[in-house]
């Protein structure tokens, strides 16, 4: 084996080992690397107790209700398996909508209601013009009416 082959082998081995070590570390800190917890994790009690964390999910259709003070908003987040009710006082981002993704930061109350101090809208990876979105919505409604 030539000296330069040995050097390349050494470089390859070093980078591979480093990547492996990084992978193990990231795997060990898996729970700390997630940006938000799911409503299922909340239901299973797998969320930090007594300190703030984030819940992410889809805003349940028809769940958004504004209180009379004009600031407090109640809504529910779901991962299609479990639902967590959320109460939030403050301005919502423009893209916050029912059936769209959202992330709420706050504490889980003893009554099971999540008291949020910050709400972020989560955008998906789909980019399309409004006409295309309309067509999809229409097709969706047609499909639903056929099912009925």
């Amino acid at each position, binding site marked *: 084996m030539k000296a*330069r082959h040995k*050097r*390349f082998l050494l*470089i390859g081995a*070093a*980078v591979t080992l*480093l*990547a492996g070590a*990084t992978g193990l570390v*990231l795997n060990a800190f*898996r729970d700390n*690397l*997630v*940006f*938000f917890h*799911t409503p299922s994790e909340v239901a299973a009690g797998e969320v930090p107790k007594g300190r703030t964390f984030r819940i*992410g999910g889809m805003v349940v259709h028809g769940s958004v209700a504004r209180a009379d003070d004009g600031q407090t908003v109640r809504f529910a987040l779901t991962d299609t398996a479990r639902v967590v009710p959320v109460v939030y006082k403050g301005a*919502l*981002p*423009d*893209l*916050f909508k029912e059936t*769209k993704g959202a*992330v709420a930061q706050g504490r889980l109350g003893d009554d099971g209601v999540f008291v949020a101090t*910050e*709400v*972020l*809208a*989560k*955008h*998906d*990876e*789909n*980019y*399309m*013009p*409004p*006409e*295309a*979105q*309309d067509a999809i919505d229409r097709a969706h409604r047609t499909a639903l009416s056929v099912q009925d």
Partner: protein
Amino acid sequence: MNFFRFSSPQTFYPLAGRLVPLFAALAAACAVAGLYIGFFVAPSDAVQGEVYRIIHLHVAAAWMSMFIYLVMAFWSAVGLGLGTRLSFYMTQALAPTGAMFCFIALWTGALWGRPTWGAYWVWDARLTSQLLLLFLYFGFIALTRAIDDPRRADKAGAIIALVGAVNVPIIYFSVTWWNTLHQGASVKPGGSSMASVMLWAMLLCALAAWFYSLAVSLARARRIILERERHTEWAAAEIARRGAGGRAD
């Protein structure tokens, strides 16, 4: 043709000189076409309205910042393995451009994040690993400039480039490995979830970033070659020629 001929700085220097204007022209053409289509032709987005148009800058810059780092790691491995000086020159020529694109990606992302998410910055896995990439670029540049002996600076920089390369797949796959606020990839091998006009504008901008990076890094590599090879006869002659008002070509 023997490509290894161009691993010598003396033969690479004039080749790079001929390629720079070509890549610069291609970059300008792609940028004009991509930005025009992106900002004037492409439709607005159904959910985000007009603000989505920043992706034409954001995605091109983010891809480029990750790719340049991988190319730096590649040249570092070649340089360490074969001991070719030119490989280290290329690594150092690429670093400032990579850092610039990394900064643009973070900056445009923040400007996009405020109206869509409701926050300029969040510490999710994608954003944090991209910020780490910026610090790796800064670290590489600072380290190679801080060491006086150029040979040792080359080696130290190469090690940072190789070690830091582990971060690039973490950035790319962060949105699938962990749940993040940043959305998943719209463009994947085998398909995209974007309207085609938007996609074409974005791809043209990405091409522009490629050609720009090639042009700028080759031009920078020529400067580094002259500086580092100044003790050789040809480089000294070239420096004298340029210093005497020779055309900078």
